[in-house]
């Protein structure tokens, strides 16, 4: 399932003197089973845009089409918005702050309960979701507030996954996590993508974009300024000093300058780089 965004604009605090145009005539499309990274500086409108995707923010102008749902100012009071949230799951930045139940399984089951599932069936779903994020049955009965930061985040993500949305939006999923947990989390997101879900990741991290994203969208002051492959973006942002080219690409470029023959555009992970270096060494020993 994809998302179509047609000429969407949104202004914060419309009446106040501090009114800011968060989204300015944005049009874009996210395809079925896409893996999109949404990048841009702080305040560029990324979070506003993704909150439009499940109707938490209703755009002033334009519309967002998800399957047969239309989010627009005209249908802002629709009760169907709740059902849209079953299709588009939004994992907020620092989602661990949304935990509130007394046990992990109850907290995760909360989402499905809101959509009508009851008792054992809801817990069953919760267990599946916890299994997906890699928390075993020893966690089910524990209070979520006693868990470590990384575990809390997993529980919170399970709390969204349990609804089984077709489109998953992650707002800065790796913020504040240690490298190991980040890797685990990105592996989970990749797995979800392979299961056929459409993934949208809001991020600052260009390394993450390089390694995982199929497509990148860049916002700047509420406008869509770039849409294309990660490699095209890295060529494009050479002109932007505030966005950094991923470390791997930098290393590859330096190596190429020194005369090593390797394709800069084909390097997405450390393993890729290692393979090319090994190959080069074999040829030059």
């Amino acid at each position, binding site marked *: 399932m994809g998302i179509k965004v047609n000429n969407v604009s949104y202004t914060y605090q419309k009446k106040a003197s501090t009114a800011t145009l968060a989204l300015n005539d944005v049009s874009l499309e996210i395809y079925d089973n896409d893996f999109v990274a949404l990048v841009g500086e702080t305040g560029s409108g990324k979070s506003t845009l993704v909150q439009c995707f499940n109707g938490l923010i209703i755009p002033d102008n334009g519309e967002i089409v998800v399957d047969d749902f239309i989010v627009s100012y005209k249908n802002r009071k629709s009760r169907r918005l709740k059902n849209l*949230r*079953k299709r588009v799951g939004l994992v907020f930045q620092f989602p661990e*702050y*949304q*935990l*509130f139940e007394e046990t992990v399984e109850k907290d995760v089951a*909360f*989402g499905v309960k*809101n959509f009508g599932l009851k008792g054992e069936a809801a817990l069953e779903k919760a267990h599946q979701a916890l299994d997906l994020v890699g928390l075993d049955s020893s966690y089910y009965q524990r209070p979520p507030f006693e868990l470590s930061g990384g575990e809390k985040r997993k529980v919170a993500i399970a709390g969204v996954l349990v*609804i089984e949305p077709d489109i998953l939006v992650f707002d800065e999923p790796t913020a504040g996590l240690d490298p190991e947990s980040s890797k685990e989390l990105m592996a989970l997101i990749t797995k979800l993508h392979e299961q056929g879900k459409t993934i949208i990741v809001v991020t600052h991290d260009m390394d993450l974009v390089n390694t995982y994203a199929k497509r990148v969208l860049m916002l700047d002051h509420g406008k869509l300024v770039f849409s294309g492959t990660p490699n095209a973006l890295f060529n494009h942002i050479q002109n932007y000093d505030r966005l950094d080219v991923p470390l791997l690409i930098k290393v590859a470029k330096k190596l190429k300058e020194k005369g090593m023959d390797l394709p800069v555009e084909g390097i997405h992970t450390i393993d890729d780089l290692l393979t090319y270096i090994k190959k080069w060494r074999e040829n030059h020993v």
Partner: protein
Amino acid sequence: MSSMTFGRYTFRETFIHRLDARNKIFLMIIFMVGIFFQFNLWSTALLLSGFYVILLIVFMTIARINFLSLFKSLGGMWIFILLLMAIYIFIPNNNYYLPTAFTIGNVDVKWDAICQSAYIVMRLVLMLALTMILTSTTKPMDMTYAFEWYMRPLKPIHFPVNEISMTLSIALRFIPTLLDETDRIMKAQASRGIDFNHGGVFKRFGAIIALIIPLFVSALERSEELANAMIVRGYDPKAKRSKYRLLKFSYRDIFAFLLIVGLFGLIIYLSVIDTKLNPLDLVEIIFKVKGF
């Protein structure tokens, strides 16, 4: 959260905005006492109420406060007002001067009851307007400084004045942060399928729990972090602190002070006159106290 705009400070450069916060608080209290003065005669009460209404309209115009926001804030008070009316109308009372307005079943509804409840509601609205003038023209920080100033006489008896004013100013500082946080958590829970706007009482109660608990957790965590940060930077509640902003009493304040205090004197005078017209009350009390 845009609905919580009642009485929020808005920056303007008006006469009332520039008044000293201490002065404003004092005058507001005086004015409120004046509003809640009881009069024996309806004529005096009505006359004065009309005068208060005009005066507050003038004040609000000077301070450039939106009248609409005052009436909007009354929206939530309707139930209270209706309850008050019901109590006044249906609870019997012997002191009726005016005729019956109409009868519901076998209950006589007197004009007295209607007037009395309308009078109370009007005084509540006046009081609301008054607080709104205070809060929307005074910076929250100035307000805490003013409270601190008023609490100074309590220092010799070891009342923790500094601590309380610091707590107050921190609490005020974090209101917008907590509102943002509320907004964020509401959205996060809405993404998990909670509908805060539709559904029955029971469902909504559940929704509130899903909001309150995370809000408390994050507020407590935040307060602990803040306390640690303050300790690390050497905060000592007992230490003598200097201030960046000083409260200043200017000619404007003298003018406002004289105006309101003069008005208050007039009200007291009127209430005395008012009682004199009912010959038994005040005179007798005074003479009894003096031992005649």
